């Protein structure tokens, strides 16, 4: 991977409030190309809002975000078409998958490339089949989402995000809505992506998974990034008391 800048995605002083409630209080970090970053932290700490701000699904009140060489500065209003151009740089995987229920599995995957990117149908179709094979769902291509299990639906969601060939893929708690026995199949797909060299940002509660796949871990608390670094440091040997408490509660729930 040859890139002029080695950070693929970055945030600078991002603020976001919902009414009186200030959820992000100036968040800054960057992610190197081809690396995986996980975001952990207590619920309500702003992890999901941070991820949605990175994709401009929730437009920040202030700060700068950048993916590749497309940058948005929220100190002034950003026009819709610029938002769209920015969003096109990243793929997004939702906690509740948000597949299009009226489209078949393969139609969900090809919708973006065909309709938005207007790429040739044969090519898109072939790539979609390959993506579905990659997430282990080649034989489900003509089924509707309701015919799939939660884990399968989430894997289609991942294929849909990848089909647009984004520079980075954002995951918002991709396994939180799943039955425990379905979590593994989704995590292993994400791990494979990390190994293949995709740039990933993953909000998750799966600490073991974070430890395994991440190059960088961010611990968020009360709207700020309290601690960041390699998993061996943030998870293995946290410096902050809050981080320790959080990890302790998750790893030893009783």
């Amino acid at each position, binding site marked *: 991977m040859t890139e002029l800048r080695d950070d693929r995605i970055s945030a600078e002083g991002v603020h976001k409030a919902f009414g009186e409630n200030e959820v992000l209080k100036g968040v800054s970090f960057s992610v190197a190309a081809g690396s995986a970053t996980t975001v952990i932290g207590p619920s309500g700490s702003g992890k999901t809002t941070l991820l949605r701000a990175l994709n401009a699904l929730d437009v920040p009140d202030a700060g700068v975000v950048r993916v590749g060489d497309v940058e948005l500065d929220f100190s002034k209003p950003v026009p819709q078409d610029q938002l769209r151009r920015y*969003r*096109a740089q990243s793929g997004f995987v939702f906690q509740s998958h948000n597949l299009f229920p*009226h489209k078949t599995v393969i139609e969900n995957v090809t919708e973006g490339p065909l309709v938005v990117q207007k790429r040739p149908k044969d090519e898109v179709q072939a790539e979609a089949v390959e993506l579905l094979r990659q997430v282990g769902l080649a034989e489900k291509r003509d089924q509707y989402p309701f015919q799939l299990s939660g884990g399968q639906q989430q894997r289609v969601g991942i294929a849909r995000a990848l089909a647009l060939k984004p520079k980075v893929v954002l995951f918002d708690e991709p396994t939180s809505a799943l039955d425990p026995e379905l979590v593994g199949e989704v995590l292993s797909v994400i791990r494979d992506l990390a190994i293949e060299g995709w740039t990933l940002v993953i909000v998750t509660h799966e600490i073991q998974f974070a430890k395994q796949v991440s190059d960088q871990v961010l611990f968020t608390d009360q709207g700020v990034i309290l601690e960041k670094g390699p998993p061996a440091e943030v998870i293995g040997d946290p410096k902050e008391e809050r981080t320790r408490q959080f990890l302790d509660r998750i790893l030893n729930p009783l």
Partner: protein
Amino acid sequence: MLAALVLTACSSSGNNGENPVKAAGVLRVGTEGVYSPFSYHDPATGDLVGYDVDVARAVAEKLGLKVEFVETPWDAIFAALESDRFDVVANEVTINDERKQKYDLSEPYSVGEGVIVTRADDSSVKSLDDILGKVAGETATSNWAQVARDHGARVEAVEGFTQAIKLLNQGRVDVVINDSIAVYAYLAETGDNSVKIAGTTGEKSEQGFAARKNSGLLPDLNKALDELRSDGTLATISKKYLKADASGGPEAQSTWQLVLHSLGPLAKAAITMTIPLTIISFVIGLVIALAVALARLSPNVILSNIARFYISIIRGTPLLVQLFIVFYALPELGVKIDPFPAAIIAFSLNVGGYAAEIIRSAIQSIPKGQWEAAETIGLNYVGALRRIILPQATRVAVPPLSNTLISLVKDTSLASTILVTELLRQAQIIAAPKFEFFALYGTAAVYYWVICLVLSFGQSRIERRLERYVAR
């Protein structure tokens, strides 16, 4: 106020000599078409006939004009005259001072005597003095209604003479006052002996043509009537239709035969009027509804308030009033629209208002995550709406929209009030000369039901198709 405006407008245009009827070469005649024996459809041929109709034809012929009949319910007939739907009314318009002030009335071409009709077993009424406090069935704007009111009766408004008699039969009104000829014709036609002529009003009434004030038509009309009277034509027509004695009505036809004969004309009315009216109005209405729903959902306050206002106007006013405004009121502002397009406009706007709320709630029922997912794959607003949201909203909206469509089928019967000869009006026309309302309305009801049955069938097919991606 409006009426005054119209009158002054007419008087300014009416006096300058050239009369527009002559220029057009056509005399447009408004008549009821359901008032036997003056204006009705011959049960055998379906043609519009009757004393007034034939007199109007003869007058037009004398004047060297073509004649064109426009069939209108009595209570809308003067509104239609004033909004220039036709040039004269030929429908036993009784000449009185009040009408003379508002309209040009010709010399009389028929002279009648008012009679009071009661049920056969009712001996309480002998003259007008006895109707005090009774209920009379009359068309609201007729001179007979005025006579009844003047003598202390309460007037129950009906659509025409034939229905008044039906109400009398059923005991819903006590008396019906009308022209003796109409009553004798009824008795002759039906052999009904449950009602009787209880007395006369004691006054002769004279009937003539009515035209708009200062129409410039009167000299011609009167001259033609004079000629027809002196050459015996009026007497001939009169003999043909007006049998003052109760003998020798037209060949009796059984109810069953009448219904059988009505099947074709009713089907034709359904296929050429009711169904096209429904389909065209529904399609245009849906387009309006989608635009209004989106405007209502728009963050733009002005846009959403306009949409709100439109919906509230449409839902807050009777459809019948909307029809009347489009058809009778707009011409007073200089916008004259033919019956069928006027009906399309009114029904489309109505469907637009109701369906807008259905479509809005259907769009809102789609989870926000669908919009977000569409955003993340790069679709813009229109793309997201068209490819992701509306296809799903359709599934939600189909059952309530089907309701709207099925209501619309039946609502189109209201178009009869603005001169569209649709299914119900056709049934009225066939029923009137024979007084067979129950049979004909029943037949029309079956037609409506069949249309709705087909639509319901279509609805369940569409629903099944749209359910294919939903877990059951």
